[in-house]
C-alpha cells in the first residue's frame, strides 16, 4: 500500500493540514463553530467536521482544467467500476450521486483523495493499494468536472424512443389450446 503513496503526496497532505491549522488559528474563514484543534494539535482532519469547515479547499489536483486528463478520468471511472455503484455519469445508484452538491465526506481535493485511498464505511472500497496516485487525481478531476462545461460526454435527456410495432411479439391466436371447461368471465 505504501508504495503508491509518493513522498510528494504525503508531504502535500501534511502541508495541507498545516495550512489548515494556520488558517484556523488566525483567520477562521466561514467557520461558525470550530472543532477544538488547539487542544489536540496532533489530530488531522480526514473528513468533514460537524459544526464548521476547517480544511482549506486548496487545489492539489494538477488535472482540474486538463481536458485530456479529465477524459482519461472518465475512462478510469468505468474501468475501476466506479460506474457500477455511482452509475455511468455519476448520477448514483448503490452509491450516492457524484453530480449533485451533496458531499458526505467533503469535496476538497484532499478530502476526495482521502475517500479514494481509505474508502468509506457504507461500501466505498479503499483504493489506496489499487489505484496509482496519478490516476486518482484524474478520477477526481473527472468527478469535479461533472455538471460543469468541462464534463466530457455529459448526460443528455434522451429523445422519446419508439418501438416499431412489428418488434413487439403479439401472438396471433392466443390461447387456442384452451377450451372450456375453464373459468370464463
Amino acid at each position, binding site marked *: 500500500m505504501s508504495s503508491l503513496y509518493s513522498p510528494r503526496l504525503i508531504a502535500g497532505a501534511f502541508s495541507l493540514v498545516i495550512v489548515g491549522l494556520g488558517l484556523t488559528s488566525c483567520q477562521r474563514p466561514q467557520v461558525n463553530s470550530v472543532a477544538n484543534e488547539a487542544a489536540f494539535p496532533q489530530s488531522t482532519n480526514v473528513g468533514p467536521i460537524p459544526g464548521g469547515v476547517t480544511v482549506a479547499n486548496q487545489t492539489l489536483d494538477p488535472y482540474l482544467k486538463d481536458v485530456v486528463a479529465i477524459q482519461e478520468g472518465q475512462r478510469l471511472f*468505468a*474501468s*475501476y*467500476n466506479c*460506474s*457500477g*455503484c455511482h*452509475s*455511468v*455519469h*455519476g*448520477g*448514483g*445508484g*448503490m*452509491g*450516492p*450521486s457524484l*453530480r*449533485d452538491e*451533496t458531499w458526505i465526506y467533503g469535496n476538497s481535493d484532499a478530502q476526495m483523495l482521502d475517500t479514494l485511498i481509505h474508502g468509506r*464505511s*457504507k*461500501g*466505498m*472500497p479503499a483504493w489506496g493499494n489499487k489505484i496509482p496516485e496519478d490516476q486518482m487525481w484524474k478520477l477526481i478531476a473527472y468527478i469535479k468536472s461533472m*455538471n460543469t462545461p468541462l464534463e466530457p460526454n455529459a*448526460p*443528455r*435527456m*434522451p429523445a*422519446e*424512443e*419508439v*418501438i*416499431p410495432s412489428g*418488434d*413487439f*411479439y*403479439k*401472438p396471433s391466436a*392466443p*390461447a387456442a*389450446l*384452451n*377450451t*372450456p*371447461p*375453464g*373459468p*370464463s*368471465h
Partner: protein
Amino acid sequence: MNSRINMPNTVRSFFPSIGCLALMVALTGLPAAGQESVDPPPGSLPGIHPVAPLADGQWTMPAGDYGNLRYSPLDKINTQNVQNLHLVATQETGIPHGHEGQPLVVNGTLYMVTPFPNNLIALDITKPGLPQRWVFSPHNDNRAEGIACCDTVNRGASFAEGKIVYNTLDAHTYAVDATTGKKIWETQVGDLKLAETETMAPVIIRNTVIVGISGGELGARGRITALNLQTGKIMWQASTTGSDADMRFGADFKPFYKKDQGQNLGIKSWGPDQWKLGGGTVWGWISYDPGLNLIYYGSGNPGPWNEDQRPGDNKWAITIFARNPDTGMAKWAYQVVPHSGWDYDQMAENVLIDMPWAGRMRKLLINSGKTGYVMVMDRETGELLSAEPFVPVTWSRGYDLKTGIPNLVENKETHSGKNIKGICPANVGGKSIFPTAFSPRTGMLYIPATHICMDYQGSEVNYIAGTPYLGADVLNFIPKGEAPGALIGWDVAHARQAWSLNSGALPEYSGVLATGGDIVFNGTLDGWFRAIDARSGKLLWQFKLGSGIVGNPMTFLGADGKQYIAIYSGVGGALGATAFPSLSADAPDAGLGAMNAAKGIKKLTLPGGALYVFSL
C-alpha cells in the same frame, strides 16, 4: 398429507352461504386434481382448488398462503361498501427507504420488518391506534448497506410455533419470540465479504426454514439454505451453480426438457470457473405444495450481466426449481432463459393452483416474471403448458413448448461494445419482485406490470470483490405511446388479458391482494393505495399515502370482527430509489438506468416509511 385440508372454522363462520356454494362446486362434476387440495373458498369457479389453506383472518407467511395466491376469502369489505374504507391507524418506521414486503398478523399482533437496520416491530391490534408491544433491533452490520444492489429493502417474515423468523440485510436469519420480542436464535447464512446479502422473506415448512441469498449484481453465487426452526442449525444447502452434488441433484432429479438434462451442467454450461461468480441468487418468493411435498422457487440473473464474458447456457441461473423441503433434493428444474443477456432474474412467485386446463384438471404452476410472459407449467413434471406475453415483448417471439426454449430475436441479443436498442421488457422486468394475486372466484391472476424497455450496451468488467459485477450500461425508457405500467387482470384459463388499469404517471411497482369481496388492492409508486373491482378492473376507491408504495397489501380480521387492510408506504427498491436525494435526476442512467423510466418521481413522491391500516 393425504387427506384434504379443511378450511379453518374461523373462515367458514363468516360465510353463512357456504353450503350453497359447496353444492355449486359439487354439481360441477369435475374430479379434483388430487386429494391433497383444500376445499375451494366460497364462490370459486368450478374445479378450482387451492393447494393449501388460505389466509383465514390471520396472515402468517409472506404470501398469506403456501400456494402464493395472496387471496383472502374475507369479504366484509366488498365492491358494495369499499368506498367507505377509511384510515384507522398509521405507524411510522422512521426509515426512509423502500418498504417492500408485507406485515404478518398472528394472535392479535401485527409484525412489521423495516428496511435496514431491519427492526422487527410488534403492534397490538386489539386496541385502538395499534399501540406498540415491542421493537426488536438486530445487530445489523452496516457494511451490508454498501453492497445491496437495489436499496436496503426487506420482504417480510414468517411465523410458526411462537416464532417470527426473518432475514437481515447482513445475511443473518433471526428467530424472535413472537410474544416477548426476545431473540431465540440467530444464524449467519451469507458472507458480506462475498457480497452476499439477504432481502427475501423466509418460508417455514414444518420444522424447516428456507432462506435464499442476494448479491447477483456483485458476483455472489446463489443458493438456498434450510435451517432447523427450533435451533437455527443449517440442515442443508442447495446451490444454483456448480456440481450436481452442490445442486442437490440426485436419482430423483428429472427435468422435463432435454435441454435441462445432463450431468454437472452447473459447471459445464460456463467458461472455466465462471460458475463460482455466476449469480443465480435466490431473492424472491417461495411456494410450497403440501400434497406433492415440493417447494418452488426461482434463481436470478447470471453474472456478470455482459453475456460475452460467460459463454454457455449458464445453468442454473434464471431457473425454476422444484425441491423436497426435507432433504433439499431437486425433483425438476427448468431454465427459463438460457444465457440471458438482459438481467431477467427468475425470482417471481410461482402461484400454485389446481384447475381445469385445456379440458382436464391439472396441477398448475403459474409464473409471471421479468421476461414478460405468463408461464403455465405442470408443477408435478415441469412441463411448460403455455407462455403468453402480458406486456410488450421484443427479446423473443414466444416459447417452443416442445423444447421449452424461447424463440430468441437475434438483433436483441446483447454484446460487449454494442448498444442494443429497444429491448422489452427492461432489466426491471415486465414484472419485478412485486407479487401477483390469484382469485379462485374470477380465475384471474392480477399482474402488476411495467411497460419499461431498455437500451443496453455491454462492456468488459473485472471482478472486484464487494463492487458490482455488471458490464452493462443500461438506459430504461417508456416507449412512446405506452403507459408506464398497469395492473392487469389476466384470465389464466384462456391465457389472455381480461382488463388493464394504468398505474398513472409512474410504472407499476407494488404487490397485489385479492379478496373474497371481489376487490383487488394495489399501490402506485407515487403513493395512491387503490381498491379495484376484481372482475372489471374498475377503480372503486383510492387514498394517497405519505410516500410511494412498493409494498404488498394484506388483510386480517380484528378482535372486533372487522376486516382490515394493511399496506406499507415508503418509496424505494431498484426503480423507486430514483426518488432518493442520492440519485440525480439529471443523469437519465442513474440507478442502473432506472431514472429515465421514472421521470418526475422526485416531484410525485418523497422518501418515507410507514404502515397504514384501513377499515370500514
